[in-house]
Structures are given as structure tokens and as C-alpha cells.
């Protein structure tokens, strides 16, 4: 049994404009030691999938119509808020995109980290010995993520750190409870490439040493190629292709995956040869039958509009939701 397995997850959020169907049957699983990249365009539901795993989507108003999320055998959707609180920060860690807005500017990072450490230890907040121990853990963790002189930096405020250093602090914070699963939502998007490379290397080392599972949400396919063992491509609230990173990148089988890969200029691409993808992401308010990518797909046929395509298995866990899988292009 995988550490995290999401099955046929449907999420809808009612609003004044009607019912937005955000997730339409997400199937995904992540094992220990795997780094699974979740990629897709803005608005495809990547972030809400990540938030759902730590049950941070308030429901109501949101509604999980079908499906399940199982973390280490427990049904996340059925857990109470108290039970979830015991998981978050202890067994499930999260890192968000923007390292500037996720640290409180008014508190020293030490105070913010010690709070998290105390929560993960389940210790009494007012016990001096627990605080001292929490502080030691924070220092050890900061050193591990490559912050020098951690002893003194603990008493600095967030503005005294650079963007990359702040992201390291957040990574340290998310790892302090020694989680089994880390959800990283665009952890390097706000950073420079050289800092990004360091953070990717850091995440890679942590996964290799601690055998944790990572769900990495990103729209940067280069980051996926460098860091991930597996990749899941999301479109309009469904995973349309998944498999090992090498399988999906070397033999992309869904027209959407092919289009995404063709859109990125690499070091070898010549001017005028990248291909954009026409059309736009489907409106989540409109009900829809059949393949949601069909209106933008160059290989679409009449039968694509009839039923939601089932996953075809291409072997080695490489699954693709296209009725023409294997036979296109």
C-alpha cells in the first residue's frame, strides 16, 4: 500500500456563478522515497490537490463528491480536525511558494520554528526544558538545510534573510517534525536559478537520506526532469498521464503532455520552433462529457467527445487517459 493514495477524487466548490468542478477524478499515489512531480497549467487543480491532502480546503463550502485520500492507511477525508492537526506538521509537512509571505515578519525565525517544533514534539509549550530541546532541534535542522551559524541566525528576523535562505528556513520548518510526506507547492518558483539548483539538491538529499515521500507541485518541467522520480500531468482536474519521469518525458503519450513538452525552449531549440498550445483551459463551471482536452487537441475525433477516456496502461506504471494512447502522432 502506497504511503499516499488518492483515488477518483472529485472536488466541487459552489459559488455565485454556479458549481465549479475543480477536481474530476484524481488518481495518484506516492510511495516512500519517491518524488512525484504534479504538473499542469494554472487553474488545473494542482494546488487544490495538494491542499486536499492536508485537508486545508474548507468544506463546506467545498464538497468532496466522490473518492478518497488515504495516507498511511487512514482516510484523510473522514478524519476530524483534531486528528488532522496531529498529522499536519508531524507526519505531513508543507512548503509553499512564496518564502516572503509565509514567515511572520514580526517574530524572530527562532520563535516561529520553536512553535512548530513544540507542536511536533507534542510537548507542553510552557516547559522550559521542552523549549530548550525544541531550540536544539531547530538549530540542528537549520544546519542540515545549509544555514551557517544557525545558533545566532535563530534570533534574526525574516527580513535579515535572503529569499533563498528564507525558503531554506521554511523547508527546515516543514521537516522539523520528521514528516513521512512532504507537499511542496512551487517551492522554487520565486527563486533565482542558482538558488533553485541548491534547493533542489537539498530536497534530493533529504529524500535520499530520510526516505520520505514528496509531492512536488510545479509548472516548471525542467525542475521535474531534474528532481522527480515520477510525474503526474494534470489537466482540468484529472491526471491525464502519469508514470516514471523518464518514461513520461522520453515517451509522452498524451497529446497534452506532448504539447507541454514542445512548448519549452531548451538549449537546443531554434527560433520560431517552439509550439504554443492554442485555446485555453476549460471553464470549470460548464458540465462536460468526454475528454476535456479534445477541444484543443490536434488528434481529436468525434468519439473523443463521447465518454471520459479510461486510463490505458502502457506498462511500468505508465498510464495515460487517451483513447488513442500509443497510436497517436
Amino acid at each position, binding site marked *: 500500500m502506497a504511503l499516499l493514495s488518492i483515488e477518483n477524487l472529485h472536488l466541487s466548490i459552489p459559488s455565485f456563478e454556479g458549481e465549479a468542478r475543480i477536481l474530476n477524478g484524481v488518481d495518484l499515489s506516492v510511495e516512500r522515497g519517491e518524488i512525484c512531480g504534479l504538473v499542469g497549467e494554472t487553474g488545473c487543480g494542482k494546488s487544490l490537490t495538494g491542499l486536499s491532502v492536508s485537508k486545508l480546503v474548507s468544506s463546506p463550502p467545498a464538497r468532496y463528491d466522490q473518492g478518497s485520500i488515504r495516507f498511511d492507511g487512514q482516510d484523510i477525508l473522514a478524519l476530524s480536525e483534531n486528528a488532522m492537526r496531529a498529522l499536519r506538521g508531524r507526519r505531513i509537512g508543507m512548503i509553499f511558494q512564496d518564502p516572503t509571505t509565509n514567515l511572520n515578519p514580526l517574530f524572530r525565525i527562532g520563535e516561529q520554528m520553536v512553535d512548530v517544533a513544540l507542536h511536533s514534539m507534542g510537548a507542553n509549550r510552557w516547559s522550559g526544558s521542552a523549549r530548550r530541546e525544541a531550540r536544539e532541534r531547530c538549530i540542528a535542522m537549520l544546519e542540515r538545510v545549509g544555514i551557517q551559524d544557525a545558533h545566532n541566525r535563530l534570533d534574526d528576523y525574516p527580513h535579515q534573510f535572503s529569499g533563498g535562505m528564507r525558503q531554506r528556513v521554511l523547508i527546515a520548518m516543514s521537516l522539523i517534525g520528521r514528516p513521512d510526506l512532504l507537499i511542496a507547492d512551487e517551492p522554487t518558483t520565486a527563486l*533565482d536559478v542558482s538558488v533553485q*539548483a541548491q534547493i533542489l539538491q537539498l530536497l534530493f538529499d533529504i529524500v535520499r537520506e530520510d526516505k520520505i515521500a514528496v509531492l512536488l507541485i510545479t509548472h516548471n518541467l*525542467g525542475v521535474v*526532469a531534474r528532481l522527480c522520480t515520477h510525474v503526474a500531468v494534470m489537466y482540468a482536474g484529472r491526471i491525464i498521464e502519469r508514470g516514471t519521469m*523518464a518514461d513520461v518525458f*522520453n515517451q509522452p503519450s498524451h497529446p497534452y503532455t506532448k504539447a507541454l513538452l514542445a512548448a519549452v525552449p*531548451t538549449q537546443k531549440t531554434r527560433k520560431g520552433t*517552439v509550439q*504554443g498550445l492554442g485555446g485555453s483551459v476549460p471553464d470549470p463551471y460548464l458540465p462536460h462529457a468526454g475528454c476535456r482536452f479534445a477541444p484543443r487537441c490536434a488528434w481529436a475525433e468525434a468519439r473523443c467527445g463521447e465518454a471520459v477516456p479510461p486510463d490505458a496502461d502502457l506498462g511500468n506504471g505508465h498510464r495515460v487517459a487517451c483513447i488513442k494512447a500509443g497510436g497517436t502522432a
Partner: protein
Amino acid sequence: MLEVKGLSKIYPARRGSPAVTALDDVSFTLAANSAFGVVGESGSGKTTLTRCLIGLEKPSQGEMLFEGRDIARLSPADLREIRARIQIVFQDPYASLNPRMSAQDIIGEPLLIHHDRLQLTARARTDRVVELLERVGLGVRHLHRYPHEFSGGQRQRIGIARALAVKPQMLILDEPTSALDVSVQAQILNLLAELQDSLKLSYLFISHDLGVVRYICDRALLLLHGKVIEQGPVDQVFDHPQSDYARRLIAAIPDVDPSQSLHLAC
């Protein structure tokens, strides 16, 4: 077309903080109808360079010759004229369009600002706005819509149309695709390449995405702490970098190539 010689900008020391050298002896030449990339990490001086070029900052030293005239030493009236010929497209299409103005007002605004010279009637202005919308892949149906009704890619197209309104010869593109999805980025890059060909534009392309710079530009320079570290044709800069810093930076770009995987390295 544009020749920058020994450009330096030093922000003087202030209470408690030492002087900051944002640009240090930067020189380059942008030929007509070519694209020049400026690459650097945050804090390397990319933004200061653009601010100097459009006259928002006075350089401490050096010259910026646009068709032989130094931008820093122009009278306000002449500067205004130059600004009609150098236009800028901003990074964030969500922040650079006024939410209270329709597409028509946004794209037509430069035509009003430069009315003295252009002398277009209201009717001619509307025609020009429609022409521009079509030029960037939108249409007359978008004329009366407001920014919130457009997607990120469409907004960036409006930003480009606005920049093209006064028929500039040169565009400064300040990370024009970094806020966009890859599929949309590809469309905008192709639009820029096509516009450059058909309108004979010159681009100064500011970016930290080396893949994009390599794709769009003919020549590029690499800035580090305000200094030019590397300069030349893109192939040379990217394939045979001379400095260690450039080599490290280029190695850090994650390419969409499974053979780069960290998992293979161990």
C-alpha cells in the same frame, strides 16, 4: 541603434548603509533589428539598467547613445520624443494594466500622450487600436473589455499592443513571460519573434530564463553585481562561457531533459 558606453550607477551612501554600485562600467551595442538579452540574478542590476535607458534614473557615469544622442542628457521634450521610440513591456501582466480601463483605453493611452506629434483624430485612434489588437492575435470584440476579463497571456498581448501603439523602433522586454504558463509563454515568444521580423523591431530582452533568452536573442550579456561577466553571440555565451560564474549559472538551469536527473548522478 543603441550604444551603451561605460555606464555606471552608484546609489550614494545613506545613514547606516554604504554606497551601492548597481551598475559598474556596462557597455554593449544593440544593432537595429536584433535582439539583445540581458541575463542576471536578482540584484545584478537588470532593473537599474532599464530604468536608466528610459530616463527614470540618471546614470552616475557613461553614455547611452540612442541613434547618436545621449539619453541622459536630453531635454524633457526630447526625452519624450525618444520614449515614443523606445517602449517597454512589463513583467507582470496582472499589475501593469489599470483594472479600471478598457482594452481600448489602455492601448490608446500612448496615442493620447503623444498626440502632439501623432495628431490622430479619435476615429483614427480607434482604428489604430483595432489594428493593434489584431496584430497581437486579439480582435475588435475585445475592444471594450476590461483586464479582469482576459487571461494572463491575453493581458500580456495587450501590454505588447500598448507598447507597439506609437510605432517604436525598440522594445524593452522586462521578463515578459515569467508570469505565464509554458504553453502561453510559447505563444508569446512566437508572437514576439514574428513581430520583430515584420515590424523590424529591436529588442532588449531582460530575463533570468536562459532558455528563453537563447531562443529569442542574437547576442546576450550576463550581469553579476552590476558588472558584465560575459558578452557575445548567444551560442558562444551559452556553449563556451569563459567565466566560472557563467558556467555554474548555465549548469543550474533545469533543462527539460531526463538525462539531467539528479537520480542518475548517484
